[in-house]
Structure formats: structure tokens, C-alpha cells
């Protein structure tokens, strides 16, 4: 077969340049991306999910018009009202206690959906409700966070994730950083207190959020309103907020019932995947990659448990500075095949990775992987070479970009570790993996 020349390469690149999606597909997807952008601009109730996960899980992921995207970003993420935002944040932080209840309209009835208690210095408690039953409790005292789901016989305890962030999110405080517009026609007086209305809507004006502030710039409530097919507006979610009411200290006590065991999630994972016990560790891009377990299985397969986490320096700095609500996740990694040429006849050998499972907790990612060695002698390899592609994310990525440091890199030969001679049945490894992940 003839050698590929540059003309052929240009020909192929030009062939790619002629590819284009069908206009009707693009048009449909443009609509969906607009909706998605509007969704993103719409602050949701306090849940533990972060925006990335919500968006990436969403099925509304198709094509869009570039110009619209860029314009959309400017519209949705400009910060023209920073002063008001700063005042609202300050007012919230000065509150001694906060009690807020969200309600959803369900079959014409208002149902309690979330209830939050916050006390300065004590933390926050968030509960979710469905059909009048408590389904979820989260207590965060600024040091630890407990999460309990109704029906479980255990509650998870882990490190705190920003109690004030929960309150900010529930009260839609970030909307004042975006495009909240003053609307005096919606002002109201409640118990002698004047509430000033601010409104936000999506570009199609089919969805609005009305938020009320009192004179002290405290969020007093909000309403989500949607346009029905009948042309009428319907309020479908509301929040009512009280400040400086007395809260029972019991509220902040992590007590979930006699039979409920408290599981120390961070400790468990930290103990299980302790760097001191790892087979291999290496610091790269502000992250520490580690291999914790390496097993020779039957069928010639290799099994490995590996992890990635930020360095202690970065972890502490980021946690101290972070006002974000959500899981701290600073980077991820993927394995390559470590393909290597063996001779001049084009023969090579590789370890094809097959991902079995992944677990994320706080800033730790743990991955269980099978490797399929190819191109080796019949007795199989005596060692395993790890090709690792590391990519920073979030705040770490931002900071490294700002400092002009690499944000992602492929490490062709990150580690070469000897394989144990003893073989473990693959079935046993799979069973253990399932148990560990669960």
C-alpha cells in the first residue's frame, strides 16, 4: 500500500470541511440548547447536585448556533448588578437565623418540598419532603455533614460543604448577580414590611422568577411562574423566609433513629485508599495519582484500583477559599493503552483498559479497571505499564490556566509496576469490586 502523502492528508482534511449536519437537526437542537441555557440561568432548589452533572446528564444535548450561545452567555452571566448582589449576600451573612420553606404546586395543592433552618455558627439543616413525608435530611455544622435518606439504615458523615452556600442557593441569591430587574408593580406589604420585587425571565418570556427583598436587602421570598398553553401565568413553586426566629438546638443534632448507623464516608475512603499504603503515587498537575491494588487475574487480565486527588496544599487552599456549594472535584484521569512498538515490523504490545467502576467522594476519585494485555508472549506480561491522561477541572484548572501551567497532559509511561505471580479468579475480583463500590 502506498505511503500517505501530504496531498492525501489535505484531501482528507478538506473532506472533513465539507461535512455538515442537516439544517433541521441543527434548528431543533438550537431550540433545545436555548432551553438548556435558560435552565442553567434558573436557580434551582437546594439539592446536592452540581450544575455540571445536571447539564451533562440531561438529554437536552444537541446542536446549537454559535452566535446565540455566545450572546446567551453574555446575557445570562453578566454581572451588572454586583452591588445589589453584594448587599444581598451581606444581609444574608448577617442574619442570625433563617427559616425557609419551599412549596410546590402539585395537582392544585401546595405541598411542602424543602425546609431549611440556618443558625449562624451552628450550621444548616435541610430536609426534603414528598407527599407529606420527610425523604431526606442533611445537617452541616460547618465541620461535618450528615446525610440521611428515609428508609436507609445508615447515615453518611463526611466533611462540611459550605453551609452558607446552601442558604444562598435556596434563597436564589445568585440571581442578583445576573439579570434581576426591579419591578415595582409586584411590590407588596406583608405584616407592615415593604417587600421590593425583582424579576427575571427567560428569553422566550415563558418563565419568570419573582424575588422579594425587604429594606435590609434580605430575601423574603420568591415565586417561580410559568406560562401555560392557555396563555395564563401559573405560580408553581414558592419560598417563604423568616429571619432571626428562635430555633431549637435539637434541630442541628444529627440523630436519625436508634437503628441508623453513622458511616464515616471520608474516613472510610481515606483509610481504604490511603496514599501511604499505595503501591505507587505521583504528583502531577496539582493532583496525586495513585495505584492502590494490582492483581493478576485468570484469562490473562490485570485488575487495578487507582485514584486521583488534589495535593494537600491545593486542597487546603481551595477549601479555605471556596464559597461553592457542591462536590469538590479538581481533576480526573483516564488510562491509555501504553502501546509500544516491539520491532521494525510494526508489531506492538498494549494494555487495553476496560473501566469497571468509579466512585467520587469529596475530592477523591477512585477507579476500578481491568487491563487486557495484547501482543505479549503466551505467559503474559510480568509487569503492567500505566499510560495516564490527567485533566484538571474546576477551580484547579482555572488557577493553573491563570498561572500559565499545564491543565491536562498524557503521561505515556506514568508507572511500571511488577505483577504478582499469583492469579486471582476474575469472578472473585468482580465480586469484590461490586462490594467495595456499594
Amino acid at each position: 500500500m502506498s505511503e500517505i502523502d501530504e496531498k492525501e492528508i489535505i484531501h482528507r482534511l478538506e473532506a472533513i470541511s465539507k461535512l455538515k449536519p442537516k439544517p433541521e437537526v441543527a434548528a431543533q437542537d438550537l431550540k433545545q440548547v436555548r432551553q438548556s441555557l435558560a435552565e442553567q440561568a434558573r436557580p434551582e432548589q437546594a439539592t446536592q447536585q452540581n450544575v455540571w452533572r445536571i447539564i451533562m446528564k440531561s438529554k437536552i444535548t444537541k446542536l446549537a448556533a454559535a452566535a446565540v450561545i455566545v450572546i446567551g452567555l453574555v446575557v445570562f452571566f453578566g454581572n451588572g448588578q454586583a452591588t445589589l448582589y453584594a448587599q444581598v449576600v451581606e444581609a444574608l451573612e448577617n442574619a442570625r437565623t433563617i427559616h425557609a420553606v419551599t412549596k410546590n404546586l402539585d395537582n392544585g395543592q401546595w405541598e411542602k418540598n424543602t425546609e431549611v433552618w440556618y443558625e449562624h455558627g451552628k450550621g444548616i439543616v435541610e430536609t426534603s419532603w414528598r407527599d407529606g413525608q420527610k425523604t431526606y435530611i442533611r445537617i452541616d455544622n460547618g465541620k461535618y455533614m450528615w446525610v440521611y435518606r428515609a428508609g436507609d439504615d445508615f447515615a453518611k458523615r463526611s466533611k462540611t460543604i459550605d453551609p452558607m452556600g446552601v442558604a444562598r442557593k435556596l434563597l436564589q441569591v445568585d440571581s442578583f448577580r445576573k439579570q434581576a430587574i426591579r419591578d415595582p408593580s409586584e411590590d407588596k406589604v406583608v405584616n407592615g414590611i415593604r417587600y421590593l420585587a425583582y424579576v427575571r425571565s427567560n428569553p422566550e418570556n415563558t418563565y419568570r422568577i419573582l424575588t422579594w427583598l425587604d429594606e435590609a436587602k434580605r430575601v423574603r421570598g420568591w415565586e417561580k411562574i410559568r406560562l401555560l398553553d392557555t396563555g395564563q401565568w401559573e405560580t408553581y413553586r414558592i419560598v417563604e423566609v423568616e429571619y432571626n426566629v428562635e430555633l431549637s438546638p435539637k434541630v442541628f443534632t444529627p440523630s436519625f433513629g436508634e437503628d441508623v448507623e453513622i458511616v464515616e464516608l471520608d474516613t472510610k475512603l481515606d483509610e481504604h485508599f490511603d496514599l501511604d499504603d499505595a503501591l505507587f503515587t505521583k504528583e502531577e498537575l496539582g493532583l496525586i495519582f495513585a495505584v492502590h491494588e494490582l492483581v493478576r487475574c485468570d484469562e490473562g487480565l490485570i485488575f487495578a484500583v487507582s485514584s486521583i486527588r488534589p495535593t494537600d496544599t491545593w486542597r487546603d487552599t481551595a477549601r479555605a477559599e471556596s464559597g461553592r456549594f457542591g462536590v469538590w472535584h479538581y481533576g480526573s484521569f483516564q488510562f491509555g493503552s501504553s502501546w509500544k512498538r516491539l520491532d521494525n515490523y510494526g508489531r506492538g504490545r498494549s494494555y487495553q483498559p476496560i473501566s469497571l467502576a468509579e466512585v467520587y467522594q469529596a475530592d477523591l476519585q477512585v477507579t476500578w479497571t481491568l487491563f487486557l494485555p495484547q501482543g505479549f508472549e503466551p505467559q503474559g506480561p510480568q509487569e503492567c505499564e500505566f499510560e495516564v491522561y490527567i485533566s484538571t477541572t474546576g477551580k484547579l484548572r482555572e488557577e493553573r490556566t491563570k498561572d500559565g501551567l499545564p491543565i491536562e497532559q498524557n503521561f505515556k509511561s506514568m508507572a511500571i509496576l511488577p505483577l504478582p505471580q499469583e492469579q486471582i479468579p476474575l469472578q472473585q475480583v468482580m465480586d469484590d469490586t461490586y462490594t467495595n463500590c456499594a
Partner: protein
Amino acid sequence: MRLHALLARLTLSQDAVGDLMQELCLRLCQSRGLDRAKDPFAYAYRAAINLAFEWRKKTRLKLESLDEDCLPVQDSPGPLATMIQVEQLQQVLDATSRLSRLAREVVVMHYIEQESYEEIGRRLDKKPQYLRSVSAKALARLRRLLAADKSRPSEKE
């Protein structure tokens, strides 16, 4: 439409385009660079190129990943011809993903997006002459990479 079309060309996968478009939006939202950029579109454009190649590096593409909706409308080759064509396009894109960031951007902008070196120079804030030499070097490297790939045994072997 340009960012979308660009992502579609670089991934050859309509499903991936949807996800990447979302990711691009979010990255741009979180980045301070967009606010500071002299030309926000050029910034978004380069971000899209890098994102698409990041994705290529992470994903081992299979032949069937090319959606029909991404195929050129005017041609309707048979299934075998399509497969061969797709494989060739995948190969050249995979090789492009192994170029340096600048070389990759120049190759994409000039040969795939059909922009002149003057236009690319404005986007990247570089001299057109310099970009021509980057491009020439990139093509030579692509040739070597593709030749090396060709000599690799296929998975079936």
C-alpha cells in the same frame, strides 16, 4: 452555527457534539478568559477546537460512531465506501489530536474551516508567515504519524 458545525466535523459524532456543546458553554461561563478576550468569538472557537480534541484523546472512536446526520448531504456512497471514508477521516483527526495545540488549531482553521492564514493570524495574534511554517511542519508531522499508525497491527490481528 459555526461552533456546532466545527464540533461536528472534529468529532464526527452527533451525540458527542451535543454534550460537547453543553460543556463548551459551561466552560465558557466559568472562564474569565471570555470576558477578557479581545475577540470573544475567536476565544470560543479555539475553546471548541481544544475541547473536541480533548474528547478525541479520551475516546477511542469506532467506525460506527459517525452519524448519518453528519454525512455530506450531496454524496451517498455505499456502506462499505462510507466506512472506508469514515475510517480515513477518523485517522487524520486522531493524528491531528496528537499535534501541538498551535499546530492543531492552524490545521483545523486552515484546512477544515478553510480560513486564510491572515484570518487565522488575527484570531491567534500571530504573523501569517509564521502560521504557514507551523502548518507545513504540522502536515509533515501528520504524514509521519499516519504512516506510523498504518504500520501498527489492527486490533483484529
